[in-house]
């Protein structure tokens, strides 16, 4: 009953309005705060008068706005990816890295840096290609072995090990490559531009909408494959579709933010605690919570040691790991599934 009351609250119009308001506040803070503060008056002038030569306008249009938009996209994309992966694998510890997003992206990046160091601008595309390609490979092998649910995780572990070995081998050959790869693997949003974000935004929101359309079917997977199939769900096709959505969404984030950890793992757990188990509610709540969390983590990284920046990936790991540990402890105390 307690859970139901929570579900009602967070998924009512009031709940969604509250989350939207919190997101707006996070966006506002993300725009005005930083190593250089922008007052609300300057923000207003900068937004609506767009004085090209004005410092506040330059900061807003070239630094802050693309950055908070990127943080919002990263939060939504990784959270949705996490919810889908945890639903289709039935594993609460599933995150984008289990379907090869991190290892695939990392391997392609290091390949590019090793053999074509002059076109390092193509790094985001290589990362997205690697992430998506590895997922396709893992999903195809798991589908061929005909034991999808558990096998996809085992295939992910096997492919990740091979790709990580490849990353280690290539980085041993060239120290410069290792340095460049390290910066990418931590995950950060500094220097991101609007032009980089339109395509990932289209991919992420398409995946979110598709997931919401399929959410009732996805929810049926909580009954197990046999029951879901007997209720008219094409389980394998649905699972494949969700995995591709999860991969595309995470790969889109990797293309501009690098390998941002913990969001896809932690946020779905927070959302389930707030919204209950219904997949549509978890997806909507995750999108809001993920966006707010990444925007605030990025803001923290900018102001904590200003003017030095801490990459958002480091902040997420610092916040995410203890938070996840607390969630696990609470779950143990309650003796129930989250």
């Amino acid at each position, binding site marked *: 009953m307690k859970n*139901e009351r929570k579900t009602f609250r967070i998924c009512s119009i009031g709940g969604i309005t509250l989350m939207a308001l919190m997101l707006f506040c996070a966006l506002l803070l993300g725009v005005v705060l930083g190593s250089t503060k922008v007052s609300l008056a300057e923000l207003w002038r900068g937004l609506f008068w767009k004085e090209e030569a004005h410092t506040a306008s330059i900061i807003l249009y070239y630094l802050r706005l693309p950055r908070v938009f990127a943080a919002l996209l990263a939060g939504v994309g990784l959270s949705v990816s996490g919810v889908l992966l945890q639903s289709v694998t039935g594993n609460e510890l599933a995150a984008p890295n289990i379907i090869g997003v991190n290892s695939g992206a990392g391997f392609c990046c290091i390949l590019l840096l090793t053999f074509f160091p002059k076109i390092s601008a193509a790094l985001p595309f290589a990362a997205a290609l690697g992430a998506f390609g590895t997922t396709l490979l893992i999903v195809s092998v798991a589908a061929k072995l005909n034991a999808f649910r558990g096998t996809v995780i085992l295939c992910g572990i096997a492919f990740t090990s091979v790709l990580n070995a490849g990353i280690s081998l290539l980085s041993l050959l060239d120290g410069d490559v290792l340095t460049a790869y390290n910066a990418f693997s931590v995950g950060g949003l500094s220097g991101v531009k609007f032009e980089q974000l339109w395509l990932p935004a289209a991919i992420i929101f398409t995946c979110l909408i598709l997931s919401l359309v399929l959410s009732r079917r996805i929810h*049926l997977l909580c009954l*197990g494959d046999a*029951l879901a199939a*007997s*209720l*008219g769900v094409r389980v394998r096709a649905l699972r494949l579709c969700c995995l591709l959505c999860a991969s595309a969404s995470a790969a889109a984030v990797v293309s501009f933010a690098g390998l941002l950890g913990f969001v896809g793992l932690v946020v779905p757990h927070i959302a389930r605690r707030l919204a209950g188990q219904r997949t*549509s509610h978890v997806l909507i709540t995750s999108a809001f919570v993920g966006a707010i969390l990444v925007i605030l983590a990025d803001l923290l990284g900018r102001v904590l040691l200003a003017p030095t920046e801490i990459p958002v990936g480091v902040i997420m790991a610092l916040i995410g790991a203890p938070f996840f540990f607390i969630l696990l402890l609470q779950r143990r105390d309650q003796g129930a599934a989250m």
Partner: protein
Amino acid sequence: MLQCNSVGVTLGGKEILSNVSFTLRQSAFTAVLGKNGSGKSTLAACICAQQKHTGQITLCGSDLASLPPRARAQRIAVLPQNVPTPNITVRELVSLGRNPYIGLSRRMGDEDFAAIDRALTRTDLGAFADRMLPTLSGGERQRAYLAMILAQDADVLLLDEPTTYMDIRAEAEFLQLLRALTAEGKTLLVILHDLTLAAKYADDVLILEHGRQTFCGTKEECLKKCAIESTFSVRRINVDGEVLFLA
């Protein structure tokens, strides 16, 4: 009605089911009996189109395997042996039974809500509708799942050992409820491990041994031919007009 014609399954070179043929009688309770590994659950998986097989399974003349999943789900409802306990309310679980009738718009209409209420009332779970599934006892949980497949509004119900984790009282109540459903027009195919309960509640009996069908007919015929005794090496006694099987 549901008809199996020469259904067979071979896995890794081993014959799991061979030449199983039977027709379910409409509005009858058919018990499927057999020792462990006799192929009962494999037969259930074939009927659910989750196991590739030879032969043909038809429902009212239509090949079950060729029916689209949602159309199949509108005609045959399945309760597998092992069901999870998701952290959702009873009403939410029962509402999932309406999935075969709901398109991607996900909207449920008055007919769906009426079917959910009917299923909850029929299984006597009205008072539990807002309880979370993990807070129910094993028997109540199984009734909730029965309500879910009743909300599915299918004519044929297939239940794989539905009373496994129930105490004697819950087991009896559950089987009485199943028995009553046949009077309302439902056709039941129930895999049971308790021979005495099968003799008490079933109309028809199907016995499998090493993947082969050794008997298929009415309960009276089964008792007359001592088919259960010969398959399970048990003896039968009659106490106060009730049939009991003892090892």
